[in-house]
């Protein structure tokens, strides 16, 4: 871990409050909901069986807009060595609780090798789940990520 020099502060207007997921246009079929722990979320399919992209988009509220940030977040409930398949099928009524995101741009959920790797907090974030063809997006509500760097040793 290396951290040098002074940090820049970030500030912006408040993001719009959202009560839950809203897809692009189509009838909502997939709900993206935050769980109690910051960075933890649940995806529920309230429609017909659906194929979702295993890659989850992370967005940060920045300059009055939601902006994509780089992360390796996936719809995986456990940490496994093998790469996650491109798509994840969620049956009607099915739920996934992915491994929570810790705010890092690499190794954001599970231990992975990284070289360049930064902590993306603090700030307001949201998760965006897409269909496997990436044509439809399902937006989660915003949540706050504190400035506690998960890679820093805990102070006793």
């Amino acid at each position: 871990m290396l951290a040098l020099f002074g940090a820049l502060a970030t500030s912006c207007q408040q993001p719009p409050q959202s009560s839950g997921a809203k897809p692009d246009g189509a009838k909502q079929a997939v709900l993206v909901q935050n769980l109690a722990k910051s960075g933890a979320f649940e995806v529920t399919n309230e429609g017909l069986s659906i194929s979702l992209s295993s890659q989850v988009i992370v967005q940060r509220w920045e300059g009055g807009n939601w902006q994509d940030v780089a992360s390796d977040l996936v719809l995986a409930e456990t940490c496994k060595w093998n790469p996650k398949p491109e798509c994840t099928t969620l049956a009607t009524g099915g739920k996934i609780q992915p491994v929570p995101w810790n705010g890092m741009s690499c190794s954001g959920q599970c231990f992975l090798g990284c070289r360049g790797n930064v902590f993306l907090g603090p700030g307001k974030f949201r998760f965006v789940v897409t269909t496997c063809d990436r044509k439809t997006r399902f937006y989660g509500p915003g949540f706050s990520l504190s400035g506690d760097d998960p890679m820093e040793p805990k102070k006793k």
Partner: protein
Amino acid sequence: MGFLQAQWAETSWCSYRGPSNYDGSIFVQRGMPPPRSQRACRDCTPATPLRDIFYSTDPVDGEMAMGKSGDTFPLVLNVRHYDSPADGCPLMLKNSLTQKDNLLREAQFEFLFCAILTVQDPNGAFRHMMAVYWNTRWHFRFERPGNRSTVIPAGTGSVVGTPFHMSHGQIDRRFASVLTSRTEHRSCNDIFRSAYSAFDPGSPNRHESRTWTDFNVTAP
């Protein structure tokens, strides 16, 4: 103004053994060719395109600051630099010669970096101002029962050197070619990830033995 970063050396190997001598052993060398295609590389965060040269161009990361037209000198710009590199090995591989599971016995990772505070002038030329060498190293041995791990103290630790001023144009030859080159097409993240192929059965850097063997960790 912002940071460039080069990784100029890497050690990365993992050694495995079955429970008994005739269960065999495996050695995987990930830090050398052909799986690791080059020694030095330009390091940048996953969000930063390699063509952008800098370690991170995402404003929120605070790794870059820009002057504005009309600014007067002296001008104060604040930047920071952050990295949290990591790596790992599978805990178990199947030995194709004995058909037995071989467990992780020993692993060593060493990543050596140089971060450079650089100013880019309006014409695109880079002026390297200050640099700091830093590294992080792990060397562990794992023993049964219970996969108890033992740190090899001399091989585990991290050092951040003293930042020093750079004379204009003075760059360490070990990584000068990758630092601001427009022909680099793979970042350090790309390069080490592709070297995971060393674990694949049949890889020239995966060595298997029918018995416990002391492999040469300095060879591919």
